């Protein structure tokens, strides 16, 4: 029987969809069977980030109203054998097209066949948010070190306290710029975690490659050396119950002269 996590933040643009795609992919790389559920109806992106946008036949609204069977709407990611699936959002309607019972029913139908169901929540705290938490057993809250994102995360934690899920929510701090956190111009990891009073699940560093890989439809976790990918892989391992130490924030070391020279030769 699988477990359903909703990935939410309140604020838009903090990396809910990127996090969903990368955590889902990492779990699949660890051999777990994963279904990603895009609930951002009308503004779907998860399919694009995964590079599956050209394979969509049916969507979640089709399943909810009975136009398609669940198995028909699931899109398989061929890179991971039989492990990673996506249930895409509808693009031609809006968040009110679904209700909480329908979402819950779909998630319950998926649970026997998957180890993990990750629900990508839309921004905001209206109907779409309520739908997304209706089917979930636990929540993963994504924030960035910006005050506005932390405020919205605080609001979401408050709402989750009013509608408690089976398990306590956990926190991901995304897009960390090490030098800004080091020099104190943004809240640091401990401050954010302590302020929100939510258990920390992991941190993810800001990296240009996250954007370039997302544009290509390849999750960043597929790059073994990338620190942001490492952050997401650590998060996935913590989700399956492994104990992984938190990544240390280091001062960015400027490359030495000889390293620069070496870099020129590598390129050519």
């Amino acid at each position, binding site marked *: 029987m699988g477990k359903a996590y909703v990935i939410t933040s309140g604020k838009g643009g903090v990396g809910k969809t990127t996090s969903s795609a990368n955590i889902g992919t990492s779990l699949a790389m660890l051999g777990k069977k994963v279904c990603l559920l895009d609930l951002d109806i009308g503004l779907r992106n998860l399919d694009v980030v995964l590079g599956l946008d050209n394979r969509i036949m049916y969507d979640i609204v089709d399943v909810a109203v009975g136009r398609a069977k669940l198995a028909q709407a699931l899109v398989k990611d061929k890179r991971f054998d039989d492990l990673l699936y996506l249930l895409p959002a509808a693009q031609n309607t809006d968040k009110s097209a679904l209700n909480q019972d329908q979402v819950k029913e779909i998630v319950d139908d998926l649970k026997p066949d998957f180890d993990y169901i990750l629900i990508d929540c839309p921004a905001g705290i209206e109907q779409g948010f309520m739908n997304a938490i209706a089917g979930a057993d636990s929540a993963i809250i994504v924030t960035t070190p910006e005050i506005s994102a932390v*405020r*919205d995360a*605080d*609001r979401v*934690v*408050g709402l989750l*306290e009013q509608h408690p899920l089976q398990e306590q929510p956990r926190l991901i701090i995304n897009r960390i710029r090490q030098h800004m956190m080091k020099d104190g111009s943004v809240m640091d990891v401990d401050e954010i975690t302590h*302020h929100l*009073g939510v258990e920390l699940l992991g941190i993810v560093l800001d990296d240009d490659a996250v954007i370039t890989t997302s544009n290509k439809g390849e999750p960043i976790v597929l790059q073994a050396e990338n620190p942001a990918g490492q952050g997401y892989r650590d998060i996935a391992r913590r989700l399956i119950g492994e104990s992984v130490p938190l990544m240390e924030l280091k001062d960015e070391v400027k490359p030495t002269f000889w390293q620069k020279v070496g870099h020129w030769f590598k390129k050519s």
Partner: protein
Amino acid sequence: MQDAAVLKGTKDGYEIVLDENAGIEAIFSALKKLLNGLQAQTLSTKPQIISFDIDTGRRLWSAENRARIETIFADYADFSVHKITSNVITKEESARRLEQLSVHVIDKIIRNGQDERIQGDVLFLGKVHEGGKLLVSGNIYVLGEVSGIIQAGTPDFEDKMIIGDVHNAQQVRIGEQFEILDDTRHHIDGGTVIYVNDLHVLDYGKVEDLKQINPKFFNQIGGVING
């Protein structure tokens, strides 16, 4: 047997006492009888409108029955009801008054977008995050962290106070007075008392000066500060 409605004269005027043990219908007929008799008496004298206080004793009258009393009086041009009083209150009202008198210890996080409303005084040990509101009808003693909005004397009691360190708060409010702390330069620490002064303006004092700021409250707590 005593009549179910009895006329009494008090120093404030006339009072009709309704027997708390009599049946409602018996009271209504007794009341009519009494008023008929009074009307017969007053007809001979110069007409003058008489207003009655009605005392229902240890019985609470429903709004419906109170309305029936009013309709009975409406038949008599010279008589009117001044007020209907009772010696007892409802359980809800008594619970509300008790709550109003008690001190509540609040130890929770009030998050962005949440309103916490409390009747009575509050000893606050928790946290109010930015965008959260703590709205209290009585006084507040703050030992926790306040980064949101804190209001004593909700909705309009200006004799209440906020004591404690609220220097991080977005707004402090007492009754209908409010202040945006960013706009003020008051020094606020653990020994600060925020109150509404005689000019109906929020003012900042020290807990040592509580005796001058609010003598009534000072006496109520026994006149002892810091031990």
